[in-house]
């Protein structure tokens, strides 16, 4: 009826998966009919969800087999619990064993308070599983653009991914805006100043500062296109720009190694040295050489993507 595109932001976990994979190719692991629900939420009189807020399984994209996970941001804010975390850990271990690339649609506020210990352990297990998979040559591609953003432990996991794709609505951070305000005061960070929140942790800023790699419109088709591009990139350090396009998933896959980690450490140290004293993202953008920094938040996606390609801090050599 409406001629609007399919919004990634509006879509649920299952709709996102359907938009990314070849039609009918998705097989769910530990699906809702298995009723593997949280053993903890009932104690707090909180309702469970049959898939514990994450959908995981196998599919094909352009006929290439991958493994895929999507968090449901509307259930418990997409937060990690024991079962939720275990499903993702298991998927990543399977990816290593099967040598399949993994796509993760993040939509999470971090760890569930009600399952704090299990959740924190899960984050650590997932980070290890991501790393081991990448060492084995698997690509782990993160997609961020949902209501809950990618916070807390989710932000940490995202930092371990091979490629991050983000839209304007997306946010990546470890600490959330309210917690920053509580700890540092409203003068330092007013969490109700939403423009400030987005300048600090939102998709456009993350793209410009090298915290995300590919910027897309809030459009499921755009996320799919970027995902395909990410699945073709070499799985480890090396210039991406000159790489000839390879069929998805195929080609040289030397994997994550110590050299990559060292390069990433270097990149982060350089970044802090260069931008550490900046008071606001506007200052950073100006330092990047962008004249009209204030225009960035209202800039339409296509124009921003062009600008970003020219001026952004890249992580291509490191991540």
């Amino acid at each position: 009826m409406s001629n609007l595109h399919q919004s990634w932001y509006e879509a649920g976990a299952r709709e996102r998966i359907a938009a990314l994979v070849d039609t009918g190719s998705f097989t769910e692991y530990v699906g809702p009919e298995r009723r593997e629900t949280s053993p903890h939420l009932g104690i707090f009189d909180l309702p469970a969800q049959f898939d514990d807020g994450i959908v995981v399984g196998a599919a094909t994209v352009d006929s290439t087999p991958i493994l895929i996970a999507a968090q449901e941001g509307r259930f418990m804010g997409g937060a990690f619990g024991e079962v939720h975390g275990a499903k993702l850990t298991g998927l990543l271990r399977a990816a290593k064993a099967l040598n399949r690339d993994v796509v993760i649609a993040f939509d999470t506020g971090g760890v569930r308070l009600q399952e704090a210990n299990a959740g924190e352990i899960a984050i650590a297990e997932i980070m290890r599983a991501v790393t081991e998979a990448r060492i084995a040559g698997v690509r782990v591609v993160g997609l961020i653009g949902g209501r809950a953003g990618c916070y807390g432990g989710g932000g940490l996991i995202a930092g371990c991914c091979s490629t991050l794709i983000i839209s304007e609505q997306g946010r990546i951070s470890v600490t959330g805006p309210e917690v920053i305000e509580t700890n540092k005061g409203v003068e330092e960070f007013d969490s109700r100043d939403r423009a400030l929140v987005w300048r600090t942790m939102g998709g456009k800023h993350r793209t410009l500062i090298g915290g995300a790699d590919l910027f897309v419109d809030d459009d499921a088709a755009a996320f799919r296109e970027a995902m395909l591009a990410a699945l073709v990139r070499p799985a480890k350090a090396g210039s991406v720009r000159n790489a000839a396009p390879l069929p998805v998933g195929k080609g040289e896959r030397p994997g994550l190694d110590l050299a990559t980690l060292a390069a990433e450490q270097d990149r982060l140290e350089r970044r802090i040295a260069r931008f550490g004293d900046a008071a606001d993202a506007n200052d950073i953008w100006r330092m990047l050489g962008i004249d009209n920094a204030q225009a960035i938040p209202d800039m339409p996606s296509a124009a921003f993507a062009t600008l970003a390609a020219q001026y952004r801090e890249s992580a291509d050599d490191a991540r």
Partner: protein
Amino acid sequence: MRQWNTRKQMREERIAAGRGFATGKLVDPETLVDFLEAVLRPGDRVCLEGDNQKQADVLARGLAAMDPDRIHDLHMVQSGVVLPEHLDVFDSGIAKRLDFSYSGPQSARIARMLFGGKIELGAIHTYLELFARYFVDLTPQVALIAAVSADRHGNLYTGPNTEDTPTVVEATSFGSGLVIAQVGEIVDTLPRVDIPGDQVHFVLDAGKPFYVEPLFTRDPAAMTETQILTAMLAIKGLYQPYGVRRLNHGIGFNTAAIELLLPTYGEKLGLKGKICTHWALNPHPTLIPAIEAGWVEQVHCFGSEVGMEDYLAARPDIFFTGPDGSLRSNRAFSQTAGLYACDMFIGSTLQIDLAGHSSTITANRIAGFGGAPNMGSDARGRRHPSAPWLQAGAEADPDTAAPLRRGRKLVVQIGETFGEGNAPLFVEKLGALELAEKLDLDLAPIMVYADDTTHIVTEEGIANLLLCRNADEREQAIRGVAGFTEIGRGRDRAMVERLRERKIIQRPEDLGIDPLDANRNMLAARSIKDLMLASGGLYRPPSRFRNW
């Protein structure tokens, strides 16, 4: 010998007393409280703006900071009780009596204070009614108003949020009262003159803009499938068959959903140009897609809305604008437009009883009336015919000969059967009745009376009260759209089916609507950002609505 200019003399005394704290008309902000104590008298009738949106906030703070030993027992007459200071003056004894219209933001506190005897209540009014009394028995002796800017003569620019000001100043100034204006800045030349300087006695440069509540922005992201379903029902079951071109939408998600369905669902039904062409309406951002798609010919506004100023100025064919290009709103005239020049009012409420009376008053909250009683009333003084008006009149009274049969304004209550906090919309006894008992009021504060209400729309269907011939039919028609509430479950099923056959009740299926088709893809905009894009970037949403 009787003196005939006592009021003018009193005003002269006040002005003389005030001059000690001012340079000409310009009050020294450092001495605001002393100034107010000098120009006011105990027991004065004071109008403090207190509009629905804009607030003379600096003057309100000054008022609340006065010494109650010097100034006390004021009678406040104001349309909106919005700021904490509006009630602080009652706590301290500076004010004693209150006549007002709307108290949404202070609904809990004002209830406590009324029950606690801290406020002597004159009456709760609808806006136009309160304005009317400014010219009869509630003429303010002092008016504290809010304007955007002033020049050195005291001419005022009130801009998009002109709202109540011309009405307040007219009554006060020409009734020999004192007019004191808070402005954001003093300039050499105003963009336009909204209030002439000889109606204004003192001006305070507050150094910053007056406070404005963003009230009419409804985030499309929060709209539910059920609200979309009620909107589809309204368009197909009411707007289309009655051919409603001139209307007012009350504030709320259901009406905002109707606005967002015009360019999509309305278009599919072929209704462009046939409905929703002329509006008495605040500048709802959710109307932007319909305006851009060519549905709207003209809108007159009660007030403005935060973030909409540039869009309004860029659409002077649609909105009322001054020679400077910015919006000119006027609540009194918009209310009059809604009374006499609109064929439909449609809005939402919190409670409806079995007769069809509706109210927003609950045990602990008194939000007042605002404009709804006026907009949602049949205007018996109306004389000009229109097709929807005549059609409704014929449904209500088929037996009277046509030349003697007045029409009826369509007055529609729309909402889900269960509202906020899963509270049922339909109740046996209105909270308003309990309030009347508690406060010993002559009248229960009813927002829209049963005999003005023509239709009720819920997700279960449309009840046409015009076609009901007795109280029983009315009750069952209401129960028949009351869904799973206790009222709905208590329906006489056989009778409801008979009412359905007579089209007194119409279900979605009867109108060819499948509830499962109601989904968010039908909205012409699904987010605040979509609205901004639809406006070509002219609409600048307030910070709280951003997610970019």
